[in-house]
């Protein structure tokens, strides 16, 4: 009998993030612009969230427009051809079609057709989930380069009168190219979920209730206190675990890039992690708002773009949100 030797992927040892891309909503929306329907004020919103302005998409600016812009910047920054992309991972909760995915359209629009392309739904943890998957695909030899995009147009899914979360939400897209590396560039990911808090950040209604005329258009809501407690104290533990498995200490970091949920979550986490002052802390939320899956790459892109941090340093990135879902890893800044 013939012995047939099956071919398997040849693995590669390390991966890294080559480049980032960013696109924000065209509109700069102030607190005064949105305070009326929630009977609030600029001062109240600033004090509770740190947000001064948030970026929202213009009327004719789609989720895909922002995603293409971010992806093209990342591809150009990586110095690769779009045809070399071996997989496209698109994290979003605001793609307005159940099917097909946003990823296949994006792949086509950026010249990566026929790369395998798929969406993931992990909300504010989605980009870090995507980086974990891209790292695994690259090191296992399944793909040489992976395009990871976190993008949201949350303004399509918010109720302007909702006082729990609407005033935080914003629109944008962040992208990264992950590829092979001679040196370690992405640590093991500490990730997971807690579905026992499935309703802590969720939609007000299902699409079926809306279809049957039993509810208004479903929008995003949250139980702020529960989420705050989890986001700070539980996520500080996850952040510390990510440092531990990466084999680095807080003082070795160049930057901390958390999901940009609320400045007070960020500040409290800094306190819990006892971060030394030399570690740059991303506070992109102040002028961008909370863009869910896009917030980590947008915030890291901002730190690099304004010269706060340089390529080559170590950054702890952590995403957390609806699910509840979370993911954290230490990466070498591209």
């Amino acid at each position, binding site marked *: 009998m013939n012995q047939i030797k099956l071919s398997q992927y040849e693995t590669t040892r390390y991966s890294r993030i080559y480049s980032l891309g960013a696109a924000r909503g065209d509109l700069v929306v102030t607190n005064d612009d949105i305070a009326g329907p929630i009977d609030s004020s600029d001062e109240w919103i600033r*004090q*509770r969230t740190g947000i001064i302005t948030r970026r929202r998409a213009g009327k004719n600016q789609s989720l895909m427009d922002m995603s293409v812009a971010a992806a093209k910047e990342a591809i150009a920054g990586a110095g690769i051809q779009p045809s070399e992309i071996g997989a496209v991972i698109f994290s979003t909760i605001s793609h307005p079609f159940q099917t097909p995915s946003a990823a296949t359209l994006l792949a086509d629009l950026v010249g990566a057709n026929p790369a395998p392309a798929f969406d993931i739904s992990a909300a504010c943890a989605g980009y870090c989930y995507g980086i974990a998957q891209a790292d695994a695909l690259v090191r296992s030899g399944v793909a040489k380069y992976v395009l990871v995009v976190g993008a949201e147009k949350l303004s399509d899914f918010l109720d302007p009168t909702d006082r729990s979360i609407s005033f935080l939400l914003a629109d944008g897209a962040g992208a990264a190219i992950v590829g092979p590396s001679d040196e370690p560039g992405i640590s093991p990911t500490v990730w997971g979920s807690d579905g026992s808090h499935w309703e802590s950040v969720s939609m007000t209604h299902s699409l079926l209730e809306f279809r049957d005329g039993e509810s208004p258009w479903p929008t995003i809501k949250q*139980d*702020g*206190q*529960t989420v*705050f*407690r989890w986001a*700070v*104290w539980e996520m500080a533990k996850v952040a510390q675990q990510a440092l531990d498995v990466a084999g680095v200490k807080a003082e070795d970091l160049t930057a901390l890039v958390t999901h940009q949920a*609320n400045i*007070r979550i960020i500040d*409290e986490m800094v306190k819990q992690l006892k971060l030394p002052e030399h570690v740059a802390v991303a506070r992109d939320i102040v002028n961008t708002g909370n863009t869910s899956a896009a917030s980590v790459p947008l915030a890291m892109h901002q730190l690099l773009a304004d010269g706060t941090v340089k390529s080559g340093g170590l950054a702890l990135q952590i995403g957390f949100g609806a699910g509840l879902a979370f993911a954290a890893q230490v990466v070498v800044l591209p």
Partner: protein
Amino acid sequence: MALSQNEVLVGLAEIVNEETGIDVESVQMGKSFTNDLDIDSISMMTIVVNAEEKFGVKIPDEEVKNLLTVGDAVNFITSAQG
């Protein structure tokens, strides 16, 4: 050993002071966290978590909503010490 009501009040006042800067003397049993002390929901949660750590008790999220006054919190912590 379980702390007395007054000892819990003193400890809680220290936590409130650290989070908000409010004088410890102002943190009295009859004071409402929101109306009198002007403590918002996020600061309240920070106080709750710090109180859990300091007094070794569990204060579930659903219980936090019932802690309207300093006295509510002190009484809950005192009895939760068991």
